[in-house]
């Protein structure tokens, strides 16, 4: 008898948990349809955008949502989007419903973790739909033909921000709060540090890894700890830099932004920042698709990359605390990027363990695929990539 009651209670509890999980998985609202400017008789191209967080987070997702807004201004484009989709099976359901219900033929699932296995699985299921992933995970020999990847060399912006930071810091210590030690993040850390050390060779960058894209308490804690340790310029690579910027401002230290313009959050300490400029990129994809080019017929390259020169990013306007010397040095670097003559990664370059990564005389241009596999931290960074 005793056992039966327990078992029944167990089933009750278990089913409660099950229902709860299922309900949770279905809870977010259905995709919000954007304005549908299907003017002429021509069928509009439906583009679906999926973000991992809210659309106005002052960060990664806001940058993509602004890009989507830009693309939706085109008369032949109809856009749908959904925010706050976790990197789980849920994103598959969202993609499926965009394809089946909204008729999306082009999808931009923007978060890093959407790729494997979610995009890959859906791409096999829907070979006529094109999936564009923001990041560097695509491999031509392994992945389906209707999957492509796009990403910008935003580390160019971080390099310039690093120059400004290097010429602003009084303690010689910069801080970088990062979410995960993946290549794109490491590249930003390294470029930031290289930028700073190009103008002040003894500058060090203290790295703190929070472990996840959105960890407000840990990010605030990290910013506070760094301020305690004498770091006086902070930047970050997390989904929403809002907490980091506000905490830096509260502690009276400087910060440089990332993803979007955060100068409003830190009016005193905001120096500059690396911002995405996706609307041009999304619009150019739409133009290409309208002209009949696709990933499958080879009209659109599977890997699309670009930097400052190609309009993938912009640099925030300099804050009031930036000295004229810093402005001058940063502008000079920007000119070189725009002219295509700047090489960030050139020998002899050592990692922070003292190992030579790029031998003297060699250089890795921005387009070099080696740089997308980055798993090291440059000399001058205090921190490690592993556990």
């Amino acid at each position, binding site marked *: 008898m005793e056992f039966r009651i327990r078992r029944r209670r167990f089933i009750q509890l278990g089913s409660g948990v099950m229902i709860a999980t299922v*309900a949770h998985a279905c809870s977010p609202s259905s995709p919000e349809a954007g304005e549908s400017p299907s003017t002429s008789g021509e069928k509009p191209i439906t583009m679906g955008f999926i973000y991992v967080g809210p659309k106005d987070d002052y960060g990664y997702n806001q940058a993509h949502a602004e890009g989507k807004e830009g693309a939706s201004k085109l008369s032949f484009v109809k856009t749908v989007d959904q925010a706050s989709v976790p990197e789980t099976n849920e994103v598959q359901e969202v993609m499926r419903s965009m394809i089946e219900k909204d008729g999306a033929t082009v999808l931009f699932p923007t978060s890093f973790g959407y790729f494997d296995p979610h995009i890959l699985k859906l791409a096999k299921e829907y070979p006529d739909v094109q999936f564009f992933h923001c990041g560097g995970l695509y491999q031509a020999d392994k992945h389906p033909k209707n999957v492509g990847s796009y990403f910008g060399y935003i580390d160019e912006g971080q390099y310039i921000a690093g120059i400004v930071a290097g010429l602003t810091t009084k*303690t010689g210590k910069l801080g970088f709060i990062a979410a995960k030690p993946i290549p794109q993040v490491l590249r930003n850390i390294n470029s930031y540090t290289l930028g700073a050390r190009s103008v002040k060779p003894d500058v060090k960058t203290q790295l703190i890894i929070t472990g996840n894209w959105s960890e407000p308490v840990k990010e605030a804690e990290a910013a506070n700890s760094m301020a305690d*340790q004498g*770091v006086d310029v902070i930047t970050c690579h997390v989904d929403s830099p809002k907490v980091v910027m506000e905490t830096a401002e509260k502690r009276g230290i400087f910060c440089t932004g990332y993803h979007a313009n955060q100068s409003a959050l830190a009016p005193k300490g905001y120096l500059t920042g690396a911002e995405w400029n996706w609307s041009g990129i999304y619009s150019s994809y739409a133009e290409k698709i309208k002209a009949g080019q696709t990933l499958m017929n080879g009209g659109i390259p599977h890997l699309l990359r670009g930097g400052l020169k190609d309009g993938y990013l912009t640099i925030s306007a300099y804050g009031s605390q930036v000295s004229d010397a810093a402005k001058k040095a940063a502008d000079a670097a920007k000119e070189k990027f725009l002219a295509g003559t700047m090489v960030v990664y050139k020998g002899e370059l050592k990692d922070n363990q003292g190992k030579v990564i790029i031998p003297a005389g060699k250089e890795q241009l921005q387009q070099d695929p080696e740089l997308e596999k980055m798993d090291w931290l440059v000399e001058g960074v205090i921190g490690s990539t592993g556990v």
Partner: protein
Amino acid sequence: MASEALGSVGVFVAILGGTLRGSVPFLFVSLGECLTEKSGKINLGLEGTLLTGAMSAYAVSFLLQGKLGSGLAPWIGVMASGLAGLCLGFIHAWLSQQRRVNDIAVGIAMIIFGSGVAFFLGKSFIQPKAPQLPTLDLGFWSTVPAVQSALKISPLFLFGMALAPVMHWFFRSTRWGLIVRAVGDSPDAALAMGISIPKVRMISIMVGSLFAGIGGSGLSLYYPGIWSENISSGQGLMAVALVIFARWNPIQCLWASLFFGGAQALGPALQAVGIDQGRYLFNAIPYLLTLVIMVLTCSPRKTLTGAPGALGEKS
């Protein structure tokens, strides 16, 4: 000069600061849950209450700053968060006292409901900046900015600190405290005394939920001081587990909250001085602690000392 680099002393300052800053939500949620569980009910939904509280405090503070000024608005925000907690508490109390309704299942539903409400209504408050609660600068004696910053204490924290002994006294030495304990320990005896069990539980759950809501305002109006969907990162659930750790004793809830708040700061503080071995482990410490406590305390063979006798049983 001392401000330039505090080195290993800085780690302690950072953990101290983190403890004082980060323990506010733990403290309020665990005290709220303590009261609820003393009356014999479990409210797992406090995670949702925490989020709703955080959102409503932030929203109200932001919306009222124009009318009331940025000094008063956050305090109205705190009240709003308490009110939001009270409402969610009412729903939980009403549902969980229906016949053949399991309070764990209702609690899980309330987590989803509370967070859903908060995410839905909070969408437009992610970007704006709401006026924050003032802090008491107890570090004025020090010239080291790190110490000054660590000792910027929220009045909410002091309120929570005071609440713990008051609750302890309430349970031990007041008639009402006795009634709550009787309902939680031995509902039959309480019934024989002529006490309305549903009424006592209703009040306990609602007041407990009110505390949790106020804890949420600590997240959004004090530290880290923003509204975002990931603001709580499971702190509400951890605080519920923490009550077991604290053996249903409000004073021990206080210590346990400080401990958990400090554990959160450990990972970043150690990385800031260049110790990044075992980073994942340090970051996982609060969760690990919760798990360990659950394993250690949940034995099927023995009951816990201090556990209310009728906890989680069907009425």
